[in-house]
């Protein structure tokens, strides 16, 4: 009977092409708006490393002004830490992996072949790549021994490698970074975690850094933090050593703690260090040593603002409106065909069979609407891509990269739409099946 009902559905569409087209379009518009909004929302709020959410932790301690919190309406500590605090905590062997880092700017060129350009560079310890699962196209990162004393090695982003070396395997090649020769040991593959969860303080949706150099170069070359750097009191900063010795926060720290026991141990380690420092006159605010997982880190940093949440709500409201319209159109369509339904009932179709036939028709409409909706969503996302082109910082990266299809989200949106359309069609199909056959036949 399924094949028969499908054939009847197609004939029914041919009988009322206008209403059918309206229904398909209504569903398609609702799905398209929802899918687009969900995709952008997911890109802007999703946890890009959700599979490691129970292992990766941002390390923060509250060394702020004892008389004033960092933020008046929040008990969150500063997002970054002082140099001396990160150095002490980094010395711990408890974490499986550990990263201390900060962004800086450097001038890069390849043996004079290209005019030098200024690029964002991440000064980081070796575990960055493994901890955050940055994929390599060529080569690999450096080992911990290359951090201190720092080895003149450098990792390039794929975009930077394309610019400098035409996309070729540049491992082993040398280039100049801030007038120092570095050897390329790795080129990252396309890697655009959205948002850049590990550095939310400095343009969360910017493209990843162009280059990465070992952490020790920071002190060696006295590299300043080109991102967020805050001091809660006036500090004597006559030289780089003063900067490192100050209570200014400018370094980011992350640890990988594979289980609850390790997490507890490291927390105790932090708390012990805090207690000692407090005795020495630091950390005069209440104890607020945190190990924050990525999901909570995104929430604490309010990565997705309320506007986006409201947009998602509006998108679903729009979908609901489209489905309500579809219910009305379905009722009109089925009532228009009520005389045929009456004939079928007179000829022996039960209510269940009429219901099944009409639901199949609803199903075909919902699938057609879902397919058209996906196509419209793809077009819409391309339009958003071009809309944000002006905000791009390059061919890759920037807000453009927000607008790609999230397969999981799309599948859920399609399932939702098809299910919702089915639900929307239940009432009209049930309603038509319930009326007495003679009611329709009288209209003949």
């Amino acid at each position, binding site marked *: *009977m399924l094949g*028969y009902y499908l054939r009847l559905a197609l*004939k029914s569409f*041919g*009988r009322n092409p206008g209403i059918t087209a309206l229904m398909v379009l209504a569903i398609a518009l609702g799905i398209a708006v929802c899918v687009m909004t969900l995709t952008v929302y997911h890109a802007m709020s999703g946890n890009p490393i959700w599979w490691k959410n129970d292992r990766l932790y941002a390390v923060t301690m509250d060394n702020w002004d004892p008389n004033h919190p960092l933020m008046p309406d929040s008990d969150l500590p500063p997002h970054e830490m002082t140099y001396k605090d990160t150095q002490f905590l980094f010395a711990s062997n408890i974490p499986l992996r550990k990263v201390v880092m900060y962004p800086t700017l450097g001038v890069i060129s390849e043996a004079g072949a290209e005019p030098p350009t200024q690029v964002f560079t991440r000064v980081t310890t070796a575990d960055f790549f493994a901890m955050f699962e940055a994929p390599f196209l060529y080569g690999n990162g450096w080992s911990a021994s290359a951090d201190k004393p720092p080895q003149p090695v450098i990792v390039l982003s794929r975009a930077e490698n394309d610019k400098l070396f035409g996309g070729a395997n540049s491992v082993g090649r040398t280039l100049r970074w801030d007038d120092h020769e570095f050897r390329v040991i790795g080129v990252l593959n396309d890697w655009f975690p959205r948002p850049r969860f590990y550095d939310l303080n400095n343009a969360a949706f910017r493209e990843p850094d162009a280059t990465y150099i070992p952490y020790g170069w920071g002190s060696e070359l006295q590299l300043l933090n080109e991102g967020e750097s805050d001091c809660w009191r006036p500090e004597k900063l006559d030289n780089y050593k003063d900067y490192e010795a100050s209570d200014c926060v400018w370094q980011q720290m992350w640890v990988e703690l594979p289980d609850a026991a390790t997490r507890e141990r490291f927390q105790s380690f932090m708390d012990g260090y805090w207690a000692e420092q407090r005795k020495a006159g630091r950390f005069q605010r209440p104890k607020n040593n945190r190990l924050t997982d990525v999901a909570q880190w995104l929430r604490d940093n309010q990565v997705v603002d309320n506007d986006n949440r409201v947009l998602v709500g509006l998108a679903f409201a729009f979908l609901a409106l489209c489905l309500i319209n579809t219910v009305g159109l379905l009722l009109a369509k089925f009532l228009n065909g009520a*005389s*045929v339904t009456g*004939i*079928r*009932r*007179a*000829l*022996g*179709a*039960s*209510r*269940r*069979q009429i219901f099944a036939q009409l639901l199949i028709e609803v199903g075909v409409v919902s699938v057609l609407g879902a397919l058209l909706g996906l196509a419209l969503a793809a077009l819409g996302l391309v339009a958003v891509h071009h809309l944000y082109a002006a905000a791009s910082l390059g061919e890759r990266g920037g807000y453009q990269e927000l607008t790609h299809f999230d397969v999981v989200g799309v599948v859920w949106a399609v399932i939702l739409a098809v299910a919702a359309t089915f639900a929307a069609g239940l009432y009209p199909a049930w309603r038509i099946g319930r009326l*007495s*056959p*003679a009611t329709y*036949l009288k209209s*003949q």
Partner: protein
Amino acid sequence: MLKMHDVSKIYRTDLIETYALRRFSLEVTPGEFVAITGPSGSGKTTFLNVAGLLEEFDSGSYLLEGRDVRSLSDNERSQLRNERIGFIFQSFNLIPDLDVYDNVEVPLRYRRLSGADRRERIGSALELVGLASRARHMPSQLSGGQQQRVAIARAIAGDPAFLLADEPTGNLDSLMSRQVLDLLEQINEMGTTILLVTHDPELARRAQRNVHLVDGQISDFRAYEPHPAVAAGLGSTGAAGA
């Protein structure tokens, strides 16, 4: 086969109640050809709808082949309509976007017969009504008489126990009307019980028994009286009277 006793059907609005059938009683035996006559609004179509399980009634009893129809569920009623009853309507009621073959096939689909069984029954029915060569025509491509013959084929394809015909010749000219009536008589001779609603007394005379309705009640109940010309030409045919 059909036994109605004191059946009443009332249509109610906010202001008035209308008795379409008022304490209506009728018995039809298998193989009969009964004509139901009466003026407009007398309850003929309502009777047919109740008899054909298309409408429910408010009081009384109705036994169809020994089964009390009031105890039947919607599925059972639908199944009875599908397997035991054939309908022929004044306005043919063919499904316009199905061709002749598909129209005749409709009741057979709901009986879940095999494809081969359906093809055989459809072929036989169309042969009987003389439209086997028009199987792939659309209803709009047929004359009124041909459409009604398709409707008859649809009604008999499932080999029903009885046919309910509501003014089957109402939209046809006299020639086509005669053709349709000839067909119905042929079907009746094969053993199918026929209830025919008609305005036309000439057509009513073709039946074995007449039931005359007025205001939802039987006002006259006469046995078959052959037309004088028929009686003179063919001799007495006998009458299956009430």
